[in-house]
């Protein structure tokens, strides 16, 4: 009885009205259809005997009990200039039923309409609520130290640089860096990742996560409005503002469907009786059936609900979809292009070999030191790898005139000498002679004062689930999986072979990636086969934007990634892409089912009505029954479904 407890006052009144009128209605049925009334064929409201007046009055009373609000709204809307809304159509249909003497049908239409509306409203409320619960990651307060006491403050009022304390069991209210304390945090609300993450001083923690074990003191890095949790909430809330094509179809369809069906109802009410001299009442009844099924509600309610559920379900799995239309695009994706670094691979490059060239008389340590100094200001993952391998303090005063040449490498002055560190293209650009080699991995050549001094080999590791991700994508029928990388051919070839990719393009500059993507887009032979690009969102922004659908590895709240892409994978796992596509397909499938089901039933009823086979009861099912079924079907979209099986 929880359902009844949760109802508001007007809903309780409606429920009472439904029960009362349904009870009287059922009691009256056998009396009415019993022997007490003579129901000859041409029997209408205009030729009644005394007994029928009694029935008419009782039925009218029930009619007003169950339908007074509909009547009132219908009348008010007519004066307001709106006709053809649901209330008006129901009023006409039921009054029409009374006029041809079909009192029980008139009541039944109103009764079932109200029951249907009631259930539909409950179903919509329930799904609104379950989506809201899903999004219930809003932190309510932040603990701050005030005069030596722990006080709860509004997260809005905490500024950057403040210290906040997060106790075990609490939600992290703002993005920050751990100052003291260590703990495990549950990021599942944001990433869908069920395994807790271990956190130590110096680590970044994003808002929305739950602190599981230890007390943490954080230094706030972002104000609430810029924090991850606020961004995600805004994104998901606004996602359903972008309409999908099928949603646009439904609303456009609805605009024409109702007037056409109502016009058809008028035509069949008037023409056959006059032209063929047939009984007015039977054709009127058929035209009333038209009116009852003329509401396109099943479509108009269920389609946005399905997309909304899909977006909610995806975000539960750690996949942010920025619009309903992107779920549709995901469903139609046939070709996927991956960026390599940071997407398929971890992007934390580790130095695997240091090879000073024999003629230069430089030691391994010196070669590494020179490279580390030149790369100091770069935020490229390769640079971090080299600096990490060097491991000593870098005196930044010795570095001047750093120039990062996109897709090539770095030119810098270190302690007065010119240092070049980068790929083969950089060496060629500056006409520096270097021995060729066939090392796999990334090779950073280093030249000092225009003289080659050696190279450093850096290798990136595949993410743990990359293999599975590619296998899943092939399994779900993605026809072509490619990789674009700025890396050299040897490395690309090795990784492509390991993963079983269909093809790859290596040694691309960021601009080349766009060009190759353009080529892939023009090559596709069918507009329903879309091309997705998956990148880490930092240097891939133009490609992500140009692809039919851009999927970014979220980097746990990287602004650039969230900004540029259409879909964001929060936990950076490539295996989530197959899941996202499956969610898109499921959502789209439900939408198609609902369109076919709702229109199918309605058209079938229209045809049966013209043939004189359909009755009012069937028509009521065609209106509210279909809507309720469609809404329940739509709610399936909230469950992302089972993960793929691995054999």
């Amino acid at each position: 009885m929880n359902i009844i407890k949760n109802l508001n006052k007007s809903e309780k009144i409606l429920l009472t009205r439904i029960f009362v009128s349904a009870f009287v209605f059922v009691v009256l049925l056998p009396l009415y259809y019993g022997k007490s009334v003579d129901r000859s064929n041409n029997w209408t409201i205009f030729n009644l005997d005394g007994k029928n007046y009694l029935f008419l009055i009782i039925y009218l009373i029930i009619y007003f009990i169950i339908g007074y609000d509909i009547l009132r709204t219908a009348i008010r809307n007519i004066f307001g200039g709106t006709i053809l809304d649901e209330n008006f159509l129901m009023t006409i249909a039921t009054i029409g039923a009374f006029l041809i003497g079909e009192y029980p049908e008139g009541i039944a239409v109103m009764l079932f309409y109200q029951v249907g509306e009631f259930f539909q409203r409950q179903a919509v409320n329930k799904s609104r609520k379950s989506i809201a619960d899903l999004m219930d990651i809003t932190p309510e307060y932040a603990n701050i130290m005030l005069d030596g006491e722990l006080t709860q403050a509004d997260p809005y009022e905490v500024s950057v640089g403040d210290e906040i304390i997060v106790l075990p069991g609490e939600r992290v209210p703002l993005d920050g860096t751990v100052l003291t304390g260590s703990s495990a945090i549950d990021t599942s609300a944001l990433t869908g990742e069920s395994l807790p993450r271990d956190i130590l001083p110096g680590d970044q923690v994003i808002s929305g996560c739950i602190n599981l074990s230890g007390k943490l003191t954080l230094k706030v890095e972002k104000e609430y409005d810029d924090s991850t949790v606020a961004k995600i909430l805004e994104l998901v809330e606004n996602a359903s503002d972008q309409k999908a094509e099928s949603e646009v179809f439904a609303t456009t369809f609805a605009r024409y469907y109702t007037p056409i069906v109502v016009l058809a109802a008028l035509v069949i009410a008037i023409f056959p009786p006059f032209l063929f001299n047939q009984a007015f009442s039977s054709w009127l009844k058929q035209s009333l059936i038209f009116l009852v099924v003329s509401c396109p509600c099943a479509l108009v309610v269920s389609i946005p609900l399905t997309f909304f559920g899909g977006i909610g379900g995806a975000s539960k799995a750690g996949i942010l979809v920025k619009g309903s239309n992107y779920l549709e695009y995901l469903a139609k994706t046939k070709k996927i292009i991956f960026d390599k670094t940071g997407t398929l691979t971890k992007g934390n490059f580790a130095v695997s070999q240091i090879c000073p060239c024999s003629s230069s008389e430089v030691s391994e340590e010196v070669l590494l030191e020179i490279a580390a100094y030149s790369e100091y200001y770069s935020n490229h993952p390769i640079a971090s790898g080299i600096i990490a391998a060097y491991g000593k303090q870098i005196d930044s005063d010795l570095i001047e005139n750093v120039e990062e040449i996109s897709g090539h490498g770095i030119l810098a002055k270190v302690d007065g000498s010119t240092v070049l560190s980068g790929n083969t293209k950089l060496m060629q650009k500056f006409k520096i002679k270097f021995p060729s080699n066939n090392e796999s991995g990334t090779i950073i050549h280093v030249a000092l004062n225009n003289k080659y001094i050696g190279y450093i080999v850096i290798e990136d590791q595949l993410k743990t689930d990359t293999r599975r991700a590619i296998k899943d994508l092939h399994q779900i029928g993605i026809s072509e999986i490619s990789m674009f990388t700025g890396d050299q051919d040897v490395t690309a070839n090795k990784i492509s072979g390991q993963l079983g990719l269909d093809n790859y393009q290596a040694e691309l500059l960021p601009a080349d990636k766009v060009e190759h993507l353009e080529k892939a887009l023009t090559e596709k032979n069918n507009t329903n086969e879309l091309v997705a690009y998956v990148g880490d969102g930092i240097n891939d922004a133009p490609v992500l934007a140009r692809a039919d659908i851009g999927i970014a590895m979220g980097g746990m709240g990287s602004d650039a990634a969230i900004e540029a892409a259409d879909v964001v994978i929060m936990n950076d796992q490539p295996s989530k892409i197959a899941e996202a596509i499956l969610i898109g397909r499921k959502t789209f499938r439900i939408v198609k089912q609902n369109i076919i089901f709702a229109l199918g039933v309605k058209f079938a009823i229209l045809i049966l009505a013209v043939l004189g086979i359909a009755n009012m009861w069937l028509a009521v099912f065609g209106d509210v029954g279909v809507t309720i079924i469609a809404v329940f079907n739509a709610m399936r979209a909230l469950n992302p479904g089972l993960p793929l099986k691995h054999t």
Partner: protein
Amino acid sequence: MKRAYKLQNLGCANCAAKIENDIAQLAGVNSVRVNFMTEKLILDADQEEFVSILDQAQTIANKYEPDLLIIK
């Protein structure tokens, strides 16, 4: 200027679509979205006429949904 408003008593998805369609026809409206699921009105309209457009939007809304209230 673009702003979002919470809607109260938005019960019918078809009405939401009609309200959206009618508001979009108003002069000075750049874009409008009536989101049935989140019960929100997102209105992007000219700054000078914003207040009057919002009033007109309320009138339009009540034409289809008499109890609907745009919470300002």
